[in-house]
């Protein structure tokens, strides 16, 4: 994953043009978004199905 990121960062320097961050930022942002989408798919799967009850029944009294 780290390697992949690095390759993307290097890409614009090979064009030898003075360009702003956008071409770097765009694929980076896309990659982040794709990662997040995968993560959200996973959350959809593992999140407790009855969130309301799950949260309500979690009560911790006493500590420290």
């Amino acid at each position: 994953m780290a390697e992949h990121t690095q390759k993307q960062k290097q890409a614009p320097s090979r064009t030898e043009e003075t360009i702003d961050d956008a071409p770097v930022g765009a694929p980076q942002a896309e990659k982040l978004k794709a990662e997040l989408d995968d993560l959200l798919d996973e959350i959809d799967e593992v999140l407790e199905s009855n969130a309301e009850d799950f949260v309500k029944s979690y009560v911790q009294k006493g500590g420290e």
Partner: protein
Amino acid sequence: MAIAKVCGIETEYGIQVRGAESNPVAASSALINAYVSGTLRNVDWDFEHERPGADARGFSYPDSFAPEIEMQLVNAVLTNGARYYVDHAHPEVSTPECLTALEVVRFDRAAEEIVRASMTAAKRLLNDGSEIVTYKNNSDGKGNSYGCHENYLVDRATPFARIVSQVTPHFVSRQVFCGAGKVGSELAGTSSRAVPYQISQRADFFEEEVGLETTLKRPIVNTRDEPHCDPQKYRRLHVIVGDANMSEVATYLKVGTTAIVLAMIEDDMIGSELTLANPVSAIRQISQDPSLTTTIALRDGTRLTAIELQWALLARARKYERSHGLACVGDDVAVDLLARWETVLAGLETDRNSVAHWVDWVAKQRLIDGFAHRHQLNPGDARLKAIDLQYHDMRADRCLATRAGLETLISEHDARTAMTEPPETTRAYFRGKCLQRWPAEIVAANWDSMVFDVGREPLRRVPMLEPLRGTAELTGALFDECTTAAELLARLDA
């Protein structure tokens, strides 16, 4: 020069029984017993020198404090030098004493594995489809909080008032990289619309600047004066203000930066310029502002953001490294710590996604915001609170933190080894090795002594008042050469 920053972390886990009725004390006992009975002969904790009522400001409450832990509750000492016990209504693991922040992370990871193994063992024993589930967090979202406490060895000669005033700016602002994140607020009258998300799990619960309490009117600096070592030479600064972290790097930074700040205070290299005007409101203001732009007032009237306050501390740490060195927190670790400290502040300032793999509250916020956006949820929706809770879920198939792409510092193998093997560079080595070798001859153990019964009267107490004695270097040969506990005691007498 500052003394070695021997340190450790004690974590109370949230606990819930699914599929059966049970009270949390019974569940915590069942959980720990399931682990202890399957792995080792139980050696009891020794309460001989426990003094939780002693106050660092010089007074003591002999009668107003019952012993913190009721005697009949499970209280085991493990072969890695840790303590695993029921504290009030929670299972709690105290790591053994460690010499560096990285060692603390390793033993905190081991503690997680111990708790996970306990859950598995308990499920098998319960055998009725019910399940004990634990959470490494600090709040139930309903106004009940439980702690993740750190401990640091401090020179007794350092004036306590200096520690209080100079460590407070760090305790208030370090949450920007070691806050665990929380959906909503538990302060009375604060709506989820006003505070949909905040940086710290714990900030809502701090009401005083300094004091002895840990369960109500919690203070930012806790004054418990119970050194568990030579009280003439040392203090143990007991820190109750932190969140439990799922991110290893967050734990590393939390403990490492605090050790450095305490070393600087010992050597009087922080100065009074960063003293805060109102720490209690500052810790909440910072927590409630994930944009990180809010400023807090110093006593001299200057206003700084939490990040600016952290930059000021880091600049002092760099200077301190040049003038004094950082051997007291471990030279190798110190270089890496300073570099990461800088990286995390720069990342938070410019592009926080770049540190989402280090900082729990940033990682969690990504999940919360992404999920809310995907499903068009409003602040206060139970599903967002469920994500918050499940981020800290110790069940591997439910935990969200382990899915969030956090960087790890400790390999699976090293974490597993640390479940049974003690650290080599503190007295925890002696404790752990004795428990490995002669559990039947050890009647009781605690932080600063062990009691042996080798068949002759009377019982023998071996004092361990120096945290840096009893290391592998100093006692390794002793363990190689002795085959019985009686031999060990004879050698110690010689």
